[in-house]
């Protein structure tokens, strides 16, 4: 088969950038065999992010239609929709504006350094082996511990909730099977009951946590979110607070290990860290593809994207567009300017960018000083098989 868009082929999931490059060069506004439009150039993606001719949340509509459809097959998938109905990335104005403002008002404390550093220390202390899986033992647990502390849920449950969250995230996968939908629905049910239980606890015993603060802000400002919607919002905050940052720490450390000069430069010049994190964000973005729905015919280059079409914005490709980034396939930790689209653009620009940046900076700083010259075990590197979210499954390192 000779197709430009091959999102499920293992070789392209492990390294999608050659496929992106071919699309950018030969057909930047590409209608895939699956019907959706695949956009790969930086300027086009930025334009669509900002243009009201495109709305977010086509996935939510699709799930809603799916639930009705599968109901007729005696399969109830409603929990998936219920779990995701207040996901900020799937909402449109005016509801999007109201929920976003609620989070901004409720989340007043941005002093999280202490929490992050405490969690980093805890994880580093638990690493006793000379060769270990840095994904499973550090990159995955760190952000989930941090977001659990921020939300106010017990950290001893983190593995359980994280697993549920990862399963729920598969609902964003471009192509899912029926069996997967049934599994996702079960995870959604379990996640809803977990957060509902904690919602009740926080109502009875309010504390300093973000969960409590959201409950009181919702009342005070008359935002009017129901309990079901609050639970969905918690699930959204939990998921978006942990998985993407895990991926950033995992693939970021991988890229530093593969570029020893950058690794050493950072050890010697820690002030370069903020710029290095920007470059790691650009180089291997965790969210590779953002989905949009076209709500009016939209001419782009030599084509017209029709009303109703589903559009896949390939952020991973925008970040490697040579029209914007010089030597895009090279990791340059002092790149300036570095206007990557990893956090999106426009009204859906990521609200947790500061937390992701801070966590990654503190994590890499700790790793670089704790392990002087770690060695990457190349054969152990395995990427997860989902193109939408670029993440390492395993990566072993050996330390002296």
């Amino acid at each position, binding site marked *: 088969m000779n197709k430009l868009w091959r999102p499920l082929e293992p070789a392209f999931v492990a390294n999608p950038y050659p496929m992106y490059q071919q699309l950018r060069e030969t057909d930047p506004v590409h209608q895939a*065999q*699956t019907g959706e439009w695949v956009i790969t150039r930086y300027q086009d993606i930025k334009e669509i992010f900002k243009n009201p001719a495109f709305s977010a949340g086509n996935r939510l509509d699709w799930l809603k239609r*799916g639930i009705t*459809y599968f109901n007729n097959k005696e399969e109830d998938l409603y929990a998936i929709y219920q779990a995701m109905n207040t996901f900020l990335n799937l909402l449109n104005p005016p509801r999007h504006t109201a929920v976003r403002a609620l989070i901004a008002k409720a989340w007043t404390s941005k002093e999280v350094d202490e929490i992050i550093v405490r969690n980093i220390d805890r994880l580093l202390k638990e690493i006793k082996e000379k060769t270990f899986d840095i994904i499973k033992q550090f990159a995955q647990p760190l952000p989930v511990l941090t977001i659990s502390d921020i939300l106010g849920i017990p950290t001893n449950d983190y593995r359980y909730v994280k697993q549920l969250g990862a399963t729920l995230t598969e609902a964003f996968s471009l*192509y899912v*099977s*029926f*069996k997967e939908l049934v599994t996702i629905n079960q995870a959604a049910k379990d996640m809803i009951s977990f957060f509902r239980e904690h919602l009740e606890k926080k109502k009875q015993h309010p504390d300093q946590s973000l969960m409590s603060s959201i409950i009181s802000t919702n009342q005070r400002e008359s935002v009017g979110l129901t309990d079901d919607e609050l639970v969905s919002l918690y699930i959204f905050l939990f998921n978006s607070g942990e998985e993407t940052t895990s991926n950033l720490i995992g693939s970021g450390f991988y890229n530093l290990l593969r570029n020893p000069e950058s690794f050493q430069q950072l050890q010697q010049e820690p002030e370069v860290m903020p710029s290095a994190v920007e470059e790691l964000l650009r180089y291997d973005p965790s969210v590779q593809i953002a989905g949009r729905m076209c709500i009016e015919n939209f001419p782009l280059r030599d084509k017209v994207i029709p009303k109703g079409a589903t559009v896949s914005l390939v952020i991973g490709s925008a970040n490697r567009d040579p029209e914007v980034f010089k030597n895009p396939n090279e990791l340059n930790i002092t790149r300036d300017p570095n206007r990557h689209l990893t956090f999106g653009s426009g009204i859906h620009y990521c609200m947790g960018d500061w937390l992701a940046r801070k966590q990654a900076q503190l994590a890499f700083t700790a790793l670089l000083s704790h392990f002087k010259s770690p060695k990457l075990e190349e054969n152990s590197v395995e990427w997860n098989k989902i193109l939408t979210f670029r993440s390492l499954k395993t990566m072993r390192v050996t330390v002296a």
Partner: protein
Amino acid sequence: MKLTQLQIEKILKEEIAVEVKRPVSELDSQVHFASHGLDSLNCIYVLYQVEKKLEIELNPSVFWDYPTIFSLAEHLHQIQAPNE
């Protein structure tokens, strides 16, 4: 028991006919699935039924990679487990 390509084609037609509420005789093996009225949702369900009948696991993208009844049947026939 390994099925012939023709038998697989018949299974596909029967499953699709139920989903799009049309008689099997009206389904042309050579046209794109979308022309039969299949969308991304009922494709998922047809795939699930085919997986059960053929006792195989399929990638959700096969409908797009083999977009006609004929080409999908040919592909499924190739990947079937050999006779024990």
